C-alpha cells in the first residue's frame, strides 16, 4: 500500500454540483452595474479635473476594482468553484508579471518616474 502518496489536492472532488441557479439576484446585478457606472464616471472625471499626483494611482485602483467586480460578480467567480478563479487569475497574474518584467528591461518605468 502506498500511503505516502495519498495526498489530496484542493481541486479534488468539490462537492457535487452546485445549485443550478447561483450568483446574485437580478436586483443585485443592477446595483453592481450602477456602482460600475459610478466608478467609470470618476475615471472619466480625471480627464476634466486635475487629480495631481493622485492621477495615476486613482486610475489604476479604479481599473482594478472594476475588473475584479466584473470578474467576481458578473462572471460568477465569487460564487463558482475556486478552480475557475485559479485558472483565470494564474493567466492574469502571469501576464502582468511577465510583461511588466519585459517592459522594465526597456527602462519603461524609469522614463516615467
Amino acid at each position, binding site marked *: 500500500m502506498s500511503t505516502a502518496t495519498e495526498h489530496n489536492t484542493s481541486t479534488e472532488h468539490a462537492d457535487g454540483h452546485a445549485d443550478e441557479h447561483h450568483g446574485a439576484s437580478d436586483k443585485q446585478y443592477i446595483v453592481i452595474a450602477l456602482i460600475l457606472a459610478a466608478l467609470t464616471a470618476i475615471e472619466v472625471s480625471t480627464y476634466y479635473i486635475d487629480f495631481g499626483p493622485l492621477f495615476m494611482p486613482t486610475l489604476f485602483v479604479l481599473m482594478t476594482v472594476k*475588473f475584479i467586480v466584473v470578474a467576481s460578480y458578473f462572471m460568477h467567480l465569487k460564487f463558482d468553484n475556486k478552480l475557475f478563479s485559479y485558472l483565470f487569475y494564474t493567466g492574469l497574474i502571469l501576464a502582468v508579471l511577465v510583461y511588466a518584467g519585459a517592459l522594465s528591461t526597456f527602462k519603461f518605468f524609469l522614463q516615467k518616474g
Partner: protein
Amino acid sequence: MADTAISHGHDSGHGAHVTSTGLSNNKMAMWMFLGSECLLFGGLISTYMLYKGRVNSGPQPDQIFDIPFTSVSSFVLLMSSLTMVLAVSAAQRKDDRNTNLWLTITALLGAMFVGGQVYEFTAFYREGLGFTTSLFGSSFYTLTGFHGVHVSVGIIMLMALVGMISRNRIPGNKAEAVEMVGLYWHFVDVVWIVIFTLVYLIPA
C-alpha cells in the same frame, strides 16, 4: 478566435454529472481559454505601452483621442455586461423569452460599441493616423482592432445563441451555453476596462 466559437456550446451536455471535479468541462475550458487570452491581450497592451509615445509622423495620442466619445462607448460596453448577466440569470430560470430579450439587447449594445469603434477609426484616419503612420498608429489599431474583433465574434455568438434558443436547438444544458457566451462577453468587457484606462485615460 476560431476556437472560441467552438469551445462554447456544443460539445456539451452531460458532463456535469460525471466529471472528477464535479465541474463542467465546457466551463473549465472557457476559463482556461480566458486565462490564455490574458497573455494575448497582455502582449498587445505591452506593445502599445512601449510604443505609444513613439510618433515620428502623424498625430500623438493625446492630440487625437476623443475622451468624451470613448467614455460613452465604454459605458455602453459596460452596460452590455449587465444585460448579459441578466440573460444568464433568465436562462437559469429557464425563461427563454427573457433570455432572448436580454441577449438581443446585449448584442445591440455590443454592435453600438463596434459601431463607435468604426467611427473612431475613420475619424482618426481622417486626422492623419493610418495603420502605418507611426508606431503609435500600428500598435493602437492592432490592440483596439483585436479587441473589436473579439467583440464582433461575441456578437455573432450572441445572435447564434438567440437563434438556437428560439428554435430549441441547443443540445444539452441551455443555461450553461448562455453562461459560456456570457463569460466570453464579460471578458471582452473586462479587457476594455483595462484598455480604456491604459490607452485612453493615461496620456502618452
